[in-house]
């Protein structure tokens, strides 16, 4: 008990989470008198899960695209095709950021790479300053329900450790995220158009020459979302195959054809992407050990018996789940939250009759909201830092978007069909 408390305190004080999880797993094994070399055996299992191959490959491709001029091309493209509408630039922001986050994972890269282009553009087009700040902050985590976002893959990996019935197939998860993700984009777009209806439109009218030029300019990148998303959603590619194709293609285009990333800079970009990958996968690795301990010690079963005494209905459980996940998303980064909490709540949610794929979507939708939940949501700080605004101002700017997203999260939670209708 004392040791657990000490570990918790160390964790809250900023000790890397992999160390905290590794320590608690080892303490668990010691108590059960299991030889500690089992930790190494569990870590070695990283080399036995084919789906994990997708994580370094997609992350690298995302970083490579982010470091090239692709973000600017993406903005120009969406701007010419959507920007002529009333509130078009706001919609551009939402759509471009979602696409970008799906490829780079929600790690703050979106705000840094795209926000820097879109925020000044919004101000220039006479959008309200507070609205613009809130919009780019919120857009930073939008899109993590779309394939091939890393959190979806990590959820599938962690959930598969628990062998749930029905099983969690990664393709199902990708399909399940589609409509809820679109709902979020639509709801935020509708709010943006309505709230900025007073803005005198300075947007240029749609022009065919510009539309053609923007298409041509982005020509090399255009096949990427089509091939990757199309390949995954139609089932032509396995996820790890799609990742390999994406990484190789991005490498050839940005380094070989466009030459926006030089060969001398390439190792740096590779290392940066692998720092993120290493940070995520080392947590996944040590949590493979702790998950095993959690299952052995029947912690979910005990917890479930405790909860069942208090919570009888599925509805009450879902409400509690929402509150819990919201607080969690505010405090924990999404990957740590996944590996720490999913092994515990998945069995409990199953016994309340929640489909594990739906649970994944609920989990990630809540986490996404957690990024912009004051006072400590991560994107609030990144935006405050990036746009040099006091964090209090970012809080205020983000609140309307937070409310809209909260409503969509509730819809996603209490309407399972929204997630499950596309899953066979």
């Amino acid at each position, binding site marked *: 008990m004392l040791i657990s408390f000490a570990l918790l305190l*160390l*964790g809250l*004080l*900023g*000790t890397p*989470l*992999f*160390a905290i999880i*590794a*320590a608690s797993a080892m303490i668990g094994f010691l108590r059960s008198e299991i*030889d500690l*070399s089992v*930790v*190494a*055996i569990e*870590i*070695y299992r990283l080399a*036995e*899960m*084919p789906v994990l*191959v997708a*994580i*370094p*490959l997609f992350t690298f491709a995302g970083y490579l695209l*982010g*470091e090239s001029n692709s*973000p600017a091309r993406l903005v120009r493209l969406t701007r010419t095709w959507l920007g002529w509408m009333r509130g078009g630039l706001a919609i551009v922001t939402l759509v471009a950021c979602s696409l970008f986050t799906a490829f*780079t994972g929600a790690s*703050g*890269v979106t705000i840094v790479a795209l926000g*820097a*282009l879109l925020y*000044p553009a919004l101000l220039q087009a006479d959008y309200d300053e507070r609205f613009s700040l809130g919009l780019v902050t919120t857009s930073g985590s939008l899109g993590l329900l779309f394939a091939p976002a890393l959190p979806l893959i990590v959820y599938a990996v962690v959930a598969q450790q628990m062998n749930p019935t029905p099983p969690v197939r990664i393709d199902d998860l990708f399909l399940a995220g589609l409509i809820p993700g679109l709902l979020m984009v639509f709801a935020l777009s509708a709010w943006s158009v309505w709230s900025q209806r007073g803005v005198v439109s300075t947007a240029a009218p749609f022009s065919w020459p510009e539309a053609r030029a923007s298409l041509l300019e982005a020509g090399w990148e255009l096949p990427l979302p089509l091939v990757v998303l199309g390949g995954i959603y139609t089932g032509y590619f396995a996820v*790890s*195959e799609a*990742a*390999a*194709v994406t*990484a*190789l293609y991005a*490498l050839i285009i940005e380094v070989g054809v466009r030459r926006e990333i030089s060969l001398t800079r390439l*190792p740096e970009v*590779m*290392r940066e992407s*692998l*720092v*993120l*990958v*290493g*940070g*995520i*996968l*080392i947590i996944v690795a*040590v949590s493979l050990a702790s998950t095993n301990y959690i299952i052995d010690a029947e912690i979910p079963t005990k917890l479930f018996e405790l909860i069942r005494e208090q919570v009888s209905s599925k509805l009450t459980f879902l409400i509690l789940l929402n509150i819990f996940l919201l607080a969690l998303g505010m405090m*924990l*980064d999404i990957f740590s939250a996944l590996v720490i909490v999913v092994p515990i709540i998945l069995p409990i949610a199953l016994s309340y009759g929640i489909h594990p794929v739906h649970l994944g979507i609920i989990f990630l939708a809540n986490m996404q909201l957690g990024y912009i939940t004051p006072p*400590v949501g991560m994107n609030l*700080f*990144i935006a405050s*830092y990036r746009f040099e605004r006091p964090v209090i101002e970012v809080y205020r700017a983000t609140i309307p978007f937070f409310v809209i997203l909260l409503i969509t999260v509730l819809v996603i939670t209490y309407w399972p069909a929204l997630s499950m209708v596309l899953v066979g």
Partner: protein
Amino acid sequence: MTEPPQTGAAAPAGSAKPGSPDPPAGGSGRASAVLHRCEDILLSLLLAAMIFLAAGQILLRNLFETGFTWADPVVRVLVLWVALLGALAASRDDRQINVDMLSRWLPERLRNTVRTVTCLATAAISATVAWHAGRFVSEEMEYATTAFSNIPTWVLASIIPIAFAGIGLRYLLLAAASARRVVAGGS
């Protein structure tokens, strides 16, 4: 319509924490710069190998309906290596994922003290993992188990103790750097 301003989007990587003071890299001087460069190049080579092997398999399978049986397991082992070496690189300047809830509100001196403690704890835990992973590797060596294509398992697993030992060492250096700041701040 004017073009949006071009930025290189050159910076903070995903796990970089804006707003937090930049900690010094683990170690200093030319020796560590060389070490870092070597690490970067090794990481790049492993990642490049992974990309070409994984993509090559797809090409072979689709065009010639063939492939190498060893390629898939090699790619999976590369995931382990890339992950652990990436984590080692993340430890260079304390960019491991953490929950930074309390320390960001602490006064600077106290924050450095806290950092010394958390870094020491991380170093101790990593060293423990490294030690037991080392035992695992030497057992595999003793029993001469093979993973695939007659490659001994211990070679493939050896990255686990190496990486964790390296991470432990880096956090020890980070702890020393924080401790020095506590002392310097006090005088």
